[in-house]
């Protein structure tokens, strides 16, 4: 898995041209993970639904 996208310049050098869009799936997975962890926590610990009480 690459972190960046690369291209070859007119001088033959390998240059970074941006972030790798293969990483999109990992950012989506991170969002799903946060949501699942929070939802499970709220489901298991319903007394924490209202932090003021």
């Amino acid at each position, binding site marked *: 898995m690459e972190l960046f996208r690369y291209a070859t310049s007119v001088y033959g050098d390998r240059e970074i041209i941006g972030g790798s869009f293969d990483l999109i799936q990992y950012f*989506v997975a991170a*969002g799903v993970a946060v949501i699942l962890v929070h939802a499970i926590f709220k489901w298991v610990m319903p007394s924490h639904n*209202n932090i003021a009480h």
Partner: protein
Amino acid sequence: MSSLAASGRVERHKLVDRIYHWVMAVSILVLMATAFLPILGWKFEWLAIHWITGLVLTAVVVFHIVRSLFFQRVMNMVPDGRDITHPMAPPGKYSIAQKLYHAAVAVLILCAIGSGLLMLRHIDTPFWKRNPYWFSDHGWGVIYSLHDFAAMALITMVMIHIYFAIRPDEWRLTRSMFRGWMTRAEYADHHDPARWKPSKD
């Protein structure tokens, strides 16, 4: 006594702030759609929509920064000592989680806007011709990378934001972003009046 107070409601977001929020929300969603749908295979003329929407986002973010700094209590959104020592206690206007989320989104959006404004020099528009020699190839690569990583991280943040917005136990906050108010009972249940006095917002 204001009509809101008379009706037992507490003002949380003024109309101008709600308009800002929703213009920003639509802008972000349009920017994400025009950025990522072509990558996922949906081919359409996305570039003009993207940079024009980016300028709209830039304008409303500048408006928000000025309004926050000079016309609102900016400290409402800054973590304070009590947020650290008593993170589960009733918060002021915003909880520590909301403040940290806002800080993270602010960094990502400012990064996307800053890099995006520089990237405008890389494209032709009705107002200027492209000048790819502003930076070296490596410099442009770094700018594009910052833009790409900020945009991808915003996917995570938008997912989390929408999740909390539709949770039933957070519905009072979502409603307040539509209607502007929360009930006095919700205010008493979820906020520390010593840390947030709505009339002094």
